């Protein structure tokens, strides 16, 4: 075998993990080969050095105490878990299985309900059999109560629009009025039924209820009846 192959087998030889067949071959090679023999010797030397120079060390006592304490605590916890949950209550010695307890509770509730119903029935029966003579009938009084009918009505919102108009008392103040002869025939004090110019046209408008914003000086046109007065 070559040195490269032997070199892989030297470590198993040092560690005693080699088969007996290979052991003889490797040992024979080591005796003949100086380099392989040197590696073999070094490996054994390192083992002896490590064991000589690195003795076993011990931890401090605190570690021992801590580990033992943890062991005891864990041991106690395991014992408690093995025993199961402890019974607590008013009567810890009395053991009642859960199904029996549930059925007993239901029966108890039903009995209580029945007793309540019986009590009510007995009370109503006693009320009907014994008339109450002390009670006097109250006088009947008719009280009229106002009835309010509510109705919701929708009211449209109307925007107020201000229109400016020019009021003419007679045809002299406006050229168009002058052309309209009918205005001249109007009564002098009949200002409320005067004409109003809107969009260039004269329309007959009732101004009753409006207050004049400026003084109007109507020109009095003489008529036949005025002379008489």
């Amino acid at each position, binding site marked *: 075998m070559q040195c490269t192959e032997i*070199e*892989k087998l030297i*470590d*198993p030889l040092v*560690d005693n*993990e080699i088969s007996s067949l290979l052991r003889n071959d490797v040992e024979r090679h080591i005796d003949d080969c*100086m380099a392989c*023999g*040197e*590696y073999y*010797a*070094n*490996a*054994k*030397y*390192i*083992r*002896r*050095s*490590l*064991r*000589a*120079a*690195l003795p*076993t*060390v*011990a*931890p*401090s006592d*605190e*570690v*021992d105490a*801590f*580990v*033992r304490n*943890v*062991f*005891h605590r*864990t*041991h106690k916890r*395991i*014992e408690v878990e093995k025993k199961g949950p402890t019974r607590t209550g008013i009567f810890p010695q009395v053991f009642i299985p859960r199904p029996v307890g549930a059925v007993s509770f239901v029966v108890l509730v039903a009995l209580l309900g029945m007793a309540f119903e019986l009590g009510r029935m007995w009370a109503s029966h006693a009320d009907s059999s014994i008339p109450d003579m002390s009670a006097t009938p109250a006088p009947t009084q008719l009280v009229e109560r106002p009835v309010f009918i509510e109705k919701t009505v929708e009211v449209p919102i109307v925007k107020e629009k201000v229109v400016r108009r020019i009021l003419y008392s007679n045809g002299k103040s406006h050229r168009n009025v002058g052309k309209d002869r009918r205005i001249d025939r109007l009564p002098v004090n009949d200002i409320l039924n005067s004409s109003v110019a809107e969009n260039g046209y004269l329309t007959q408008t009732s101004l009753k209820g409006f207050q004049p914003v400026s003084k109007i000086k109507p020109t009095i046109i003489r008529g036949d009846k005025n002379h008489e007065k």
Partner: protein
Amino acid sequence: MLEGDAAAFNELYLDLRDSIYSFVYRMVDGYSAAEDILQETFIFFIEYPEKYRPERGSLFSFLCGVARNKTMHHLRKCGNLLETGTDAFADCLVTEDNTMQSPLKVLLEREFETKVEESLKSLSPLLREVLILRELHEFSYQEIAAISEENINTVKVRLHRARRIMAGLLAPYVKGKGNSCHAMY
């Protein structure tokens, strides 16, 4: 012990305590961290005793596996990369020239122990654990593979590399014929 026998646990704890603590102590740097990991290992066993299956191996190897996992977690948490250091010391392998040029004439025992300890700690954790489990605790390859959760070939390769690196680091303390460092003994 599973039934809560305190005496049995005490005996078991005293038997395995020092070996597991030594393994953890060589893996991590510092007493406090090693003690914490030892505590956690035994507390894990106390709380989950059913995790141990005798058909898979001895209780010692099981506890070593638990301690090993907690140690690796601690090293990762501390930012100690597991692969770091594997190649950094590759140059220290035994060479023809630098091993025997300046051999020490007098080796003090204390210096030698310190050097061995430093050399071991300079290995990457993955190589270190394999070397410790094999050389100090004498686990078989199969057991080491089970503890480190690797296959057996990986264990062999790591052990081989660890030994070569250690031989290179301890070479200056060797005197004797040729380059062989076993000449000291």
